[in-house]
């Protein structure tokens, strides 16, 4: 068997297939290019979604403002009086949520980093099925095009909130966005679900089947663990969203009554009987809650990697991290009804879900403690990626704390559907995951494009965004505790809320400034892509396998044999070692000076690993 191994090793493949522009950049099966496609599309959507939020923040912060100057973009959605159309306000909120949750923080985050990092960090030439992977991107693309088109139709895009609750979303009479706009939303989301499932099947199959020799699950980087579990959660929850959407389609287009019971509109009875809108909520949140972890876990995985690398310390509690992620994955499926405490849910069930919801705070807290203890007394190197990772931890704490309030069924009666909830999930999900995305881009940019991003601009970007996020979302807690409901067009029509007018103006200004800070990032990103300093092979002195590839890896990633893995990825600042990092492909036999006693015993096992065939995956 050893002889076959050397045989394979000697036979260096020519991985650069002859590509033309179309097969190289458009219909590519190379996971790295697909990752970039997801990233660029995600950035595009983030800009659109961000601009939408600015428009509705103008309405909330400056209710008297004349918005005529927006007419060239929004056309008839600016009324003759120069105001934002109230129905379009709802459409904006809905599309902002849909775009950010699904297109930016699911496709843009998982799609980018699962594609990019899984093969590179586990030592695989590509995904299990390059074709399915390509299909996954193009389904996402079609889904994006449909959603984008829906922004421009006569009746406006879907406007029932990102959760599209029926009956609002089921009856075209209810709001103009529930007509064609809602139909396009459903079609688009169907493609999106297909894309996510194709991607997820691939990620799972790749992690399980294509690890290089020696890369056991106990040596996997935490990023891969996170991306893997994310894919598992997605595989189990997105089909449920599909089922929910399917029944909604039947209700809308065929006249069934799954979600519609006896309803009167303008004094006239609809023919529907016997349906239940709460049924939709159950189905939706069975996806919806796991979805928030689908959005968060990849960001946490990226953070684990970056915090360990830039603290020059082994991650604290590697096993505890894995166990808490497993715990989160399992628990995320049994807490969905905490979104429904005030839907008329049986109070006993409410208590059960309250208990389970508070239990999920435990693994989340374990992760936070592990980040903090990893940072503790580390040799911290504040790269922009590191700052964004630390920022993520901060948001995860401040947003997670409010989750514990919301998780109490009794307190939630006051807080449900107020700005308190908006503050909660924008900190813990929106901002935390966005920071994870940013951290990932800053950290892996050198591997993606072979060049470095500018650090100074990175620092400015970080500080403006970090401070900006808190200025935007922190005040919302107060507005929410006072009881102001989310998704309302105007504050000023209620005397009780007039006192918050200045606070809202303040929030809006902060939001505009924070959005402006993202332009710095955009400049840095595109400029560095072409003009950045050339990246060294391993710019962060990191241990994981992706830094053993050439500066610009071709299709197939490694020019020679795929490296073999001997150790976990967190051997940073090991006592006795020559350098402060020992990459995963360095055998213990090569580092006698730093081996611990039980690691010397592993030298024997290394020979066994080397006897395994090199699986060249062609």
């Amino acid at each position, binding site marked *: 068997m050893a002889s076959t191994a050397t045989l394979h090793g000697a036979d260096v493949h020519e991985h650069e297939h002859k590509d033309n522009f179309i097969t190289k950049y458009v219909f590519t099966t190379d996971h790295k290019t697909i990752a970039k496609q997801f990233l660029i599309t995600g950035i595009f959507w983030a800009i659109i979604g961000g601009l939408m939020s600015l428009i509705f923040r103008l309405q909330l912060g400056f209710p008297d403002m004349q918005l005529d100057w927006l007419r060239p973009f929004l056309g008839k959605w600016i009324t003759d009086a120069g105001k934002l159309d109230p129905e379009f306000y709802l459409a904006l909120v809905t599309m902002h949520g849909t775009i950010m949750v699904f297109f930016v923080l699911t496709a843009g985050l998982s799609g980018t980093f699962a594609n990019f990092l899984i093969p590179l960090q586990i030592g695989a030439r590509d995904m299990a099925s390059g074709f399915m992977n390509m299909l996954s991107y193009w389904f996402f693309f079609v889904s994006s095009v449909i959603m984008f088109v829906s922004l421009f139709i006569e009746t406006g895009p879907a406007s029932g909130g990102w959760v599209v609750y029926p009956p609002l979303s089921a009856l075209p009479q209810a709001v103009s966005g529930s007509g064609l706009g809602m139909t396009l939303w459903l079609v688009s989301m169907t493609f999106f679900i297909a894309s996510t499932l194709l991607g997820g*099947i691939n990620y799972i199959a*790749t992690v399980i089947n294509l690890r290089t020799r020696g890369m056991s699950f106990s040596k996997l980087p935490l990023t891969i663990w996170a991306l893997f579990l994310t894919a598992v959660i997605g595989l189990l929850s997105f089909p449920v969203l599909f089922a929910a959407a*399917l029944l909604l389609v039947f209700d809308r287009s065929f006249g069934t009554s799954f979600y519609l019971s006896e309803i009167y509109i303008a004094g006239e009875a609809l023919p529907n009987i016997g349906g*239940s809108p709460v049924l939709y909520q159950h189905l939706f949140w069975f996806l919806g809650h796991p979805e928030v972890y689908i959005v968060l876990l990849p960001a946490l995985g990226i953070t684990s990697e970056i915090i360990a690398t830039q603290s020059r310390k082994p991650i604290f509690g590697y096993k505890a991290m894995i166990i808490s992620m497993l715990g989160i994955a399992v628990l995320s499926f049994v807490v969905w009804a905490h979104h429904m405490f005030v839907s008329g849910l049986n109070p006993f069930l409410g208590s059960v879900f309250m208990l389970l919801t508070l239990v999920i705070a435990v693994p989340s807290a374990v992760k936070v403690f592990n980040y903090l203890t990893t940072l503790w007394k580390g040799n911290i190197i504040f790269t922009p990626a590191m700052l964004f990772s630390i920022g993520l931890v901060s948001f995860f704490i401040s947003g997670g704390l409010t989750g514990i309030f919301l998780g109490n069924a009794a307190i939630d009666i006051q807080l449900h559907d107020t700005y308190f909830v908006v503050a909660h999930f924008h900190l813990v999900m929106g901002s935390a995951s966005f920071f994870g995305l940013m951290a990932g881009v800053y950290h892996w940019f050198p591997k993606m494009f072979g060049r470095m991003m500018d650090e100074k601009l990175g620092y400015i970007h970080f500080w403006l965004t970090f401070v900006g996020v808190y200025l935007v979302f922190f005040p919302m807690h107060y507005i929410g505790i006072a009881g102001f409901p989310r998704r309302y067009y105007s504050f000023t029509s209620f005397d009780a809320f007039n006192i918050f007018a200045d606070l809202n103006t303040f929030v809006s200004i902060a939001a505009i400034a924070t959005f402006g800070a993202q332009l710095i990032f955009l400049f840095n990103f595109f400029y560095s892509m072409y003009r950045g300093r050339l990246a060294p092979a391993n710019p962060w002195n990191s241990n994981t396998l992706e830094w053993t590839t050439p500066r610009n890896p071709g299709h197939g990633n490694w020019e020679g044999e795929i490296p073999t893995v001997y150790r976990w990825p967190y051997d940073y600042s090991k006592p006795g070692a020559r350098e402060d990092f020992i990459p995963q492909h360095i055998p213990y036999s090569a580092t006698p000076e730093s081996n611990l006693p039980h690691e010397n015993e592993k030298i024997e096992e290394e020979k066994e690993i080397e*006897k395994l065939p090199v699986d060249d995956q062609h």
Partner: protein
Amino acid sequence: MENTMQLDQPKPTLSMNPKKFALWLFIVTVVMVFAALTSAYIVKQSEGNWLDFELPSAFFISSVIIVLSSIALHWSYYAARKDNLFGLKAGLILSLTLGLLFLVAQYISWVQLVERNVYFVGNPSGSFIYVFTGLHGAHLVSGLIFIFVIIYKAFRLKIHSRSLTSFEMCLTYWHFLGALWLYLYIFMMINH
């Protein structure tokens, strides 16, 4: 070479054909869709306003047909393992035919539902039955296409004892679709 294959040796990471594995993952997603729908059925039923009616008798016939079809396909698979080409093709065609018959039986069940004045549009208790059968039928069509592809390959002599992966995947999928129907049938019998 042989003596390195001891038990304490770390296992090679590549343990299962990735395509087969991906099929299993796909099956998981289908299971989740139907788990969601049948749970929705129970939730809706427990809320009342539920119309009771007798299930179509054609369901029993279609269940028998789908089991026979699975048996035929398995028989064909055994034949392929023994390189018995006649058995391979006969079994494949038989199971394809039975699969088509199953769809006919499902169609008859819809006719029977209509005779009972149970329509797709109306009380959800009836609509659910149409969704179960319809969505399962849609998956079944994909299974039939899969069998058809295998028949095509079999006639071009691409299926034999040393080349069975695609057939094995087809077999897994077809058995799964049969089992899924039996689950739905039993589910509907118990909960209506």
